[in-house]
């Protein structure tokens, strides 16, 4: 059993980490906004942690704070995420549908090129030798686990209060929501910023987890992968991102014995999910439950 965790500890934590990225896309989706900006904030959050963890300027801070340097990195990433999220969110969220998605893709590209040109970010090689919080990869669950629980709690609670209802109102019909007195822009920006902040903190936790950080973490490909977690998992369920990430992250590893052909099977599974479960895994599960209930209830 210990061998299992030694071998798959990294994978288990990666699932939670990627689920957090999925959730960061789920937040704006709650208000009906398709944003791919999360990965840009994830990348920036990672750079904040990587720079604070390795740059000589912060050496006295690290010496003084010890382990508490890590929470401080998260805090800095959080502040950056919120401030930049608001700055990007207000103009970007004036756009709708595909144009918002395009603007956020552009944001990801801008971040990518910007960090490649900042000497402090280490260029294409990136930053390496980031101080470790734990020896074992599995122990990083103490970083990502509580954050995931917190994020899930926020999503769960938010759907029960007025703010969440306002999000859903905007998602279902922005014009009608506006006519009913819902402040649509404020709600869209709030949902967007929540996602940005979550992505930034996840990034700050990921830099020590991965040992290294570089511009390849924040590419367009990565943002599409995160979107896939939500779509495969189910975009209308808060458990969707977790199940989507669990499937997409673990599948290539579970299929590892198949060697080269594993990517083929990986693709087949994804296509099958898209074709047969258009509402995602959670949507499929819900449909199954209704059918079972209908079967048991007879004519009811």
């Amino acid at each position, binding site marked *: 059993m*210990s061998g299992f965790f*030694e*071998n798959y500890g*990294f994978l288990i934590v990666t699932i939670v980490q990627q689920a957090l990225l999925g959730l960061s896309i789920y937040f704006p989706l709650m208000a009906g906004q398709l944003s791919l900006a999360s990965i840009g904030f994830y990348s920036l959050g990672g750079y904040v942690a990587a720079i604070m963890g390795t740059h000589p300027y912060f050496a006295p801070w690290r010496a003084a704070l010890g382990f508490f340097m890590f929470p401080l990195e998260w805090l800095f990433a959080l502040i950056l995420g919120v401030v930049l999220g608001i700055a990007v969110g207000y103009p970007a969220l004036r756009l709708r549908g595909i144009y918002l998605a395009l603007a956020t893709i552009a944001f990801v590209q801008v971040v990518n090129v910007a960090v490649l040109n900042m000497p402090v970010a280490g260029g294409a090689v990136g930053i390496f030798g980031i101080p470790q919080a734990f020896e074992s990869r599995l122990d990083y669950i103490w970083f990502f686990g509580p954050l995931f629980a917190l994020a899930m709690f926020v999503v769960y609670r938010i759907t029960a209060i007025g703010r969440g209802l306002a999000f859903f109102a905007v998602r279902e019909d922005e014009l009608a929501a506006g006519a009913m007195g819902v402040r649509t822009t404020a709600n869209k920006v709030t949902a967007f910023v929540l996602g940005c902040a979550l992505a930034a903190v996840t990034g700050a936790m990921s830099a020590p987890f991965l040992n290294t950080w570089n511009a390849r973490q924040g590419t367009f490909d990565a943002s599409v992968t995160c979107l896939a977690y939500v779509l495969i998992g189910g975009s209308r369920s808060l458990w969707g991102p977790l199940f989507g990430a669990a499937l997409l992250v673990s599948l290539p590893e579970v299929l590892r014995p198949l060697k*080269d052909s594993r990517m083929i099977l990986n693709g087949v599974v994804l296509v099958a999910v898209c074709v047969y479960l258009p509402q995602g895994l959670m949507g499929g599960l819900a449909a199954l439950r209704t059918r079972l209930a209908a079967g048991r209830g007879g004519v009811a």
Partner: protein
Amino acid sequence: MKRLAPALALVLCAAIPALADKVATPIPIGIAVGQTSNVALFGQEQVNGAKIAEERLNAAGGVNGTKITLVFQDTAGDEAGAVNAFQNLINRDKVVAIIGPTLSQQAFAANPIAERAKTPVVGPSNTAKGVPEIGEFIGRISAPMTQVAPYSVKQAMKLNPDIKRVAVLYAQNDAFSSSETVTFQDAVKNLGLETVTVQKFQTTDNDFTTQVTAVLGAKADLVIISGLAADSGNLVKQLRQLGYKGLIVGGNGLNSPNMFPVCGALCSDILVAQAYSPATVDKNPVNKDFATAFEAAYKKGPAQFSAQAYTAVQVVTEALAKIEKETGKKIADFELAELREMLNKSLRTGSYMTPIGEISIQPSGEVEQKDFYVSKIVMNPDGKTGSFVLVSE
């Protein structure tokens, strides 16, 4: 306590066999390279080279009669994939050493895992600064281009002694190219030439009009390119089409026949800095054996990544043989943890005669390679195929 006892027993049972692992026969050596994703082009070349090494070295008796076997784990192109592959090789496949990963960025993520598990790593293609410094179990056989870069610029000056104004171009999103360009720029300065412009591009770019215009505007008479095959091919093509007539020096990323279909006949006369040249078969019998076997198996000449992968496997095998010779004990009689530490020390002693020439690994893990090569691209009349002709001797 009663409930605790079985749990403790379980933990002990799980822990003890892990400590007392013996080395398996045939001796497993891990290969963790990117066989899928966007690095597969390199990864497949590495797999090909490693497979030839397994076949040739076993045919020659392996480790004093004991065969080696290569265990392949795909890293794909990302950091997480490299970590997963390393975990599998260390814990499940119980290899004596790991050869990989393909990219330097992956090395920064995965090598610390091997360092903690005290498993030696031999990097077959990591060239970024800082890789050997990750830890005492990390080494590489792929040299950073600090020596060959000035040499290739000197070759260009020999061909055209009037060179004064140099334009430097590099792929800023590629780790290898952005390290290499620093070496080139230093070389240009040290040779007393003037750098008139430094232009950046991305490996994904197709249109290089901006960069080419800047080069032409700066009236450069030498262009130095650090990039990968496809983007550099397009860049060369557009430079020539827009009227650049001077010499072109390419970095190690251009040392690939994959560039020929991209720039076609316009590839001609590029000077390329190489860490491996298939043209050395006359002087290097190890390379001759490798190149002949490679051509027989794959119907094409070996690329640098293949030669380096072969070299890595050969270095590990010879280091294992050295341990047997020094201790008088068979490898299979060692405990895995003990052997991994001894192998790490053994790797760093003595020198190796390999397809890429004579090399040794310093105690720091950095490689010392004796020979580098400068070749000129000569395209065939069909404009689609060509070859690298050695100009340095």
